[in-house]
């Protein structure tokens, strides 16, 4: 990797480790290998959101041209959010694309992602299904996001009723992840989910 990129990542790594957010366990960063080109990030779900209590892992790939081009970031933990793909974890956030600025750091990126969890932009979605639910059935969206946080990110608000429906589909021979995703996309309507899967 180009010298300036490695130099800067090392400095930023120290900055994150020293930051007060780490002290509050709000963000964390770890090395994946010795090359400094791949890092593992972690953000805590912000309070007063459906993601509260969850911890979300992120894959951070640092390009050779960093910091002149943004790092490539994606969620490794599955998450139900209008601006994050529920399938791939890809993130739709302007500062990771054309609004990137060279003075931004890993710390500010992680904090921006945390802010994105607290303030979704359903009009500029990455996951159209989630975005539609967010706009049309906001309460279902909230409980679904809570449920996903509990299942995949260690959150506290597991919704028993939802899980029973997942189990029903699993009993029919459907893969658990697929069952949960399809039920979520169909506003937890078991009949419609079954139709979607078996039609």
């Amino acid at each position, binding site marked *: 990797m*180009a010298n300036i990129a490695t*130099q800067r990542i090392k400095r930023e790594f120290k900055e994150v480790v020293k930051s007060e957010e780490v002290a509050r366990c709000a963000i964390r960063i770890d090395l994946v290998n010795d090359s400094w080109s791949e890092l593992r990030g972690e953000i805590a779900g912000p309070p007063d959101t459906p993601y509260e209590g969850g911890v979300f892992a992120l894959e951070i790939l640092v390009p050779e041209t960093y*910091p*002149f081009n943004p790092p490539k970031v994606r969620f490794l933990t599955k998450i139900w959010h209008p601006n994050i793909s529920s399938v791939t974890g890809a993130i739709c956030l302007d500062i990771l694309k054309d609004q990137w*600025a*060279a*003075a931004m*750091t890993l710390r500010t990126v992680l904090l921006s992602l945390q802010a994105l969890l607290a303030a979704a932009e359903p009009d500029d979605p990455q996951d159209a299904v989630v975005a539609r639910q967010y706009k049309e059935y906001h309460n279902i969206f909230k409980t679904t996001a809570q449920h996903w946080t509990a299942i995949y990110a260690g959150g506290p608000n597991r919704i028993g009723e939802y899980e029973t429906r997942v189990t029903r589909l699993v009993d029919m021979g459907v893969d658990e992840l697929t069952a949960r995703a399809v039920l979520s996309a169909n506003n937890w309507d078991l009949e419609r989910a079954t139709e979607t899967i078996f039609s």
Partner: protein
Amino acid sequence: MASSSSTASTEEASTSQPEKKEETKQKKEDDGEESDKESDEKMFECNICLDTAKDAVVSYCGHLFCWPCLYQWLETRPNRQSCPVCKAAISRDKCIPLYGRGGSGKDPRSKIPPRPPPTRTEQTDNGRFSWGSNEGNGGFHMSFGIGAFPFGFFASAFNFGAPGTAPAGANFMTPQQIEEQEFLSKVFIWVALIFIVWLMLA
């Protein structure tokens, strides 16, 4: 704390404790000075490489950069040049060089900073040369590792080889330089045409 009637060993321990305290106090003071120094140095860190700014320039919006770093940032986004910190409009002419005591006093912007070497291989007939008149000291600037280029350029101009194509490595040139180059190559072609017409008529 051990009482006054304690055994020798605890006395020893109690006397050594205040010393330790002093030591830690001393250490804390040192740390304080160090962190002061650190924060002072941080004041003069480039906002891009996070190192102490070399060939420092400051934008109109007040943000400090190394000129090589800022140059590369501006080159990365030639059409949308904005301050990496606050996104205010920024350009080569909208920043001020900083001269500390003991510096060379030369305008850091007058030199194009060293850039990473290109990874592409050069085509033999695709000439390239850098016209440096707007760099403040007249004369020619040869871009990084492309020594024989002026001749290649003349050759391609007189060969009428693809006059309109964008020159290779144009991403390393400022828009003015590209414009100048296109203008020059057109001039050369017209001179050549006029010369040929004159030869035929004479």
